[in-house]
């Protein structure tokens, strides 16, 4: 089997992955204009200042959209098809690519709750649909 496509851990992204390994999903918030974002960047994409801090996400989010892979584009995922990939918007604003746990996504804008879990021995953020 092909190697898992592990993230490239850089000084910028290391705190994000390290927090996940401790069970926390974090995002960056600008200390100048309060804008919040993911994925990790060196400067605030709103005011362009480099004055930001990591903040822990509540874990509440909503489903923006999703797809279901019926074909693996990478060998490591060959035995996992069909699997879903979702765009999730956290209640604090940042968006991320993630996936929805069984029974999977049903409709756009449904409420989601964070459920961090291990894939190939490393924690990644995943979400579960919650009743409204």
């Amino acid at each position, binding site marked *: 089997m092909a190697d898992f496509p592990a993230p490239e851990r850089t000084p910028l992204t290391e705190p994000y992955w390290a927090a996940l390994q401790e069970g926390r999903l974090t995002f960056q918030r600008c200390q100048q204009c309060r804008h919040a974002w993911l994925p990790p960047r060196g400067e605030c994409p709103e005011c362009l200042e480099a004055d930001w801090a990591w903040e822990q996400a509540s874990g509440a989010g909503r489903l923006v959209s999703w797809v279901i892979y019926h074909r693996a*584009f990478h060998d490591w995922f060959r035995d996992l098809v069909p699997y879903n990939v979702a765009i999730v918007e956290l209640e604090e604003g940042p968006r991320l690519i993630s996936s929805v746990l069984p029974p999977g996504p049903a409709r756009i804008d449904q409420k989601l709750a964070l459920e961090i879990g291990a894939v190939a021995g490393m924690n990644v953020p995943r979400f579960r649909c919650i009743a409204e």
Partner: protein
Amino acid sequence: MVIAGIGQTEYGRHPGRDTLSLNVEACRKALSDAGIAKCAVDGLLVKVPTSRYEAMYGQKLAEAMRLQPRVGGVWDQGGAAPISMISFACMAIEAGQCEVAIVALADNPKTGTRQAYEKGWGDDAVHGWFGVAAGYGMILQRHMQAYGTRPEQLGAIAIACRNNGARNPHAQLRKPLTMDDYMASPMIVEPLRRDDICLVSDGASAVVVMREDRARQLGVATPVPILGYGQAHTSWDVALRPDLTSTAARQSAKTAFAMAGLAPADIDVAQIYDCYTVAVLMTLEDYGFCAKGQSGRFVEAGGIELGGTLPINTSGGLLSETGLPGLQMVIEGVRQMRGSSCNQVADARRCLVSNQGGMMTTHATMILGR
């Protein structure tokens, strides 16, 4: 400003030929079509081949044609590049920076590598987030959910393009498609089926751009006027767009229509970039040919077929003529305005062409007249 000449290779497989060779063939044919000599050319703008980026590619092509252009280089906007490059050629000519420009592109993913279209998206690859198709799938899923868009409506787009391509002797795929075929086509990245996805092609296309008076002076036989153009671009990552079902196509068309002094109702025929069927839905809506959410109904009612209110992709589009990134659609627009298309729309006086790249990341629009 006019398009004075058009040229293309055959589309499909060109084993053993590099992109410089394909580009030179298309440029030679475009010059021959314009009826002008190579020595008149002093501008050369080239789209970098998607399947193999290389530095200074524009000057490599200039060297292969023994040209020393006053304006030259490569453009990196994916499938929006062809119209963008024609726009920049027009602006350079108007600014007195050059007089006659060639705009060209070539690629060979069919016999080379298609890896560029299937790679992982950075650290998000941990979730299995790979390939360009999935981004379009995200847009389509949201559109289907928000507006009730159905698979049969996407099928209507694939069928219209494939039927047009079946009548184009130079199309790579000349097999018509039925709704049963479409619905039986396997899911690749749901909700996208195989038949929603463009071809993979080797080949090249080129056009020659100059002022109208220069074309007259050089004795160009059938110059086609450029009435307007525009472009607009959005975030690289599809997930970060505030509204997935509203794209840069809107601003791009607004600029082009304003420049031409025209509105959607003035357009007789269109070449709409169909790398994925959903791109056609989004473009029809964002261009104002139908209201947001109504494109499914518009295509299902036959609006885009020959004889409809807006026939599209009359040479087959990316789904049938060639999957090359977009200059072939400008070439078909020129043929429509010359009256020489394989699926000629009677009395067509204005043709709109859309180009777009990435996951609807970049967009460019052009309106041609006669």
